[in-house]
């Protein structure tokens, strides 16, 4: 059980009024709020330890390096990777996917080869592959989904062909909340020697993830959705695969020696971290990992499960409300519409009541097309959200109706 009162005290931003109402923050799938523990870690770093990493012999540089590398170890432990060498710091899930597309997949891709994704991917797990297809003449295949918002796996075996060079799959859908059966899907892909990348941006803040147990080849996530700052994330890759990959970007820190004739690249993971990294971000991410670990991923998942069940029950009782995504296995995301009222209008009116939700296509336009809408309203939950806040959301929805249905 989470101690909600204590958790809410950790997040200073929650204790404010918006438009004269207490803030109810239900836009966690877009970005989470940050606890004092993360804010303080970043601020302490800048106040006490700031210097460049992996370079100086002076004390500050050593402390910065220790903190930066300490965060890498924390992320390794968080994902249960085998080695720190398998954790590459990146700007976020988007950058990680682009890195894998260009550095792992592209060198082995020929015209006519295939890349397999699913219909419910975030644009970050669509566009890098489309770009790769344009560059190489490869073909993008898509696992379909049903109206419940689950992947339709009836043709999955056929989509895994001898030409498929990678399966890139979201762990949890940001637009629908669906938790995909990735472990089985990874096993099926591996049975045909197809490597698998998992986009875990929506998963890591809400459930425990074990990359060895999943046996995925790559797992990527963004820090800012799990209480860390923006501009930092991590790429996990199996060491033998990362070893074989060429560097993605060139620059300082990713080299062992440079002459005008030849450059010898650095070892893992530094080979993929060109230039001075986002040191403070990585330290913040380390603090966020500590925070999630202290709360317990399973406790967070149980709490959010309670919230989504309650919200779904209330939404189902409203005749004019439609829920998008009713998969039996779901994370804390409620995507919905109100009859005859556009999601943007809902969002504006809820904001007047202090309730922050996301409205729009959620960077998943194919999902919107699937349901024949251009946008949905989305409430997404975090560990600091309460049942009372869901009641506030539904009271605010009454204000929406009042405004529109005179």
């Amino acid at each position, binding site marked *: 059980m989470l101690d909600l009162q204590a958790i809410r005290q950790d997040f200073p931003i929650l204790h404010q009024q918006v438009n004269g109402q207490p803030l109810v923050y239900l836009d966690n799938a877009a970005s989470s709020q940050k606890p004092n523990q993360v804010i303080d870690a970043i601020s302490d770093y800048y106040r006490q330890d700031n210097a460049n990493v992996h370079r100086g012999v002076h004390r500050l540089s050593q402390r910065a390096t220790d903190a930066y590398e300490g965060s890498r170890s924390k992320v390794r432990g968080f994902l249960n990777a085998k080695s720190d060498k398998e954790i590459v710091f990146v700007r976020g899930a988007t950058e990680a996917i682009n890195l894998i597309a260009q550095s792992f997949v592209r060198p082995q891709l020929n015209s006519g080869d295939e890349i397999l994704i699913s219909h419910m991917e975030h644009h970050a797990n669509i566009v890098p592959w489309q770009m790769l297809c344009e560059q190489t003449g490869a073909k993008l295949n898509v696992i379909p989904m049903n109206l419940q918002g689950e992947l339709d796996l009836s043709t999955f075996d056929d989509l895994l062909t001898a030409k498929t060079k990678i399966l890139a799959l979201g762990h949890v859908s940001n637009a629908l909340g669906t938790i995909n059966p990735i472990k089985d899907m990874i096993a099926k892909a591996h049975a045909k020697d197809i490597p698998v990348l998992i986009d875990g941006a929506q998963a890591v803040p809400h459930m425990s993830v074990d990359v060895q147990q999943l046996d995925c080849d790559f797992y990527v996530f963004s820090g800012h959705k799990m209480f860390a700052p923006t501009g930092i994330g991590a790429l996990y890759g199996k060491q033998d695969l990362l070893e074989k990959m060429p560097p993605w970007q060139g620059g300082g820190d990713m080299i062992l020696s440079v002459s005008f004739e030849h450059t010898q690249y650095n070892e893992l993971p530094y080979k993929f971290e060109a230039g001075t990294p986002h040191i403070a971000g990585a330290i913040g991410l380390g603090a966020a990992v500590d925070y999630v670990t202290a709360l317990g991923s399973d406790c967070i998942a149980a709490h959010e499960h309670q919230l989504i069940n309650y919200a779904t029950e209330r939404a189902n009782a409203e005749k004019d409300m439609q829920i998008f995504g009713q998969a039996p296995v779901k994370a804390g995301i409620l995507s919905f519409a109100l009859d005859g*009222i*556009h*999601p*943007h*209008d809902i969002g*504006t*009116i809820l904001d*007047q009541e202090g309730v922050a939700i996301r*409205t*729009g*296509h959620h960077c998943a*336009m194919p999902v*919107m097309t699937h349901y024949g809408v*251009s*946008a949905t309203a989305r409430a997404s939950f975090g560990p600091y959200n309460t049942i009372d806040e869901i009641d506030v959301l539904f009271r605010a929805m009454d*204000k929406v109706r*009042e*405004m*529109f249905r*005179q």
Partner: protein
Amino acid sequence: MTELRDLYQAVILDHNNNPRNYGKLTLANRHAEGVNPLCGDQVNVFFRLGDDVSVKEVGFEGRGCAICMASASIMTETVKHLSVVQADQYVTAFCSLAVGENSYFTGRLDLSTLNILAGVKAYPARIKCATLAWHTARSALSKGGASVTTET
């Protein structure tokens, strides 16, 4: 809620529920599509210009929020029967009004109908909803506009 009612006035809700000049014009000779890629709103604006380069017929179709739809509807009523030059002046006047600024045409044109959308200036995230149809109209009316297509 009072402040919100400034945005969602009865007239605006009426335009949203019963948009004027809604539908594709079969005899259009000017057309442009306007999209808001951030939110997925989409508006198509059609004009039939006469030989005197004035708006004989105007129509729109699309999908978007109440502000977007109402603004598109009001735009069509505003520019109907105007010359292309006058219509463009109204676009300028409206886009200024939506951000709470005056333009050269403020006080020179009758903006009383457009003023019911002025409440949008208090909601910066929604201003682009209000201006989408107007920008699209300008694009359709300006001959060299990149997104303008001519249909017969």
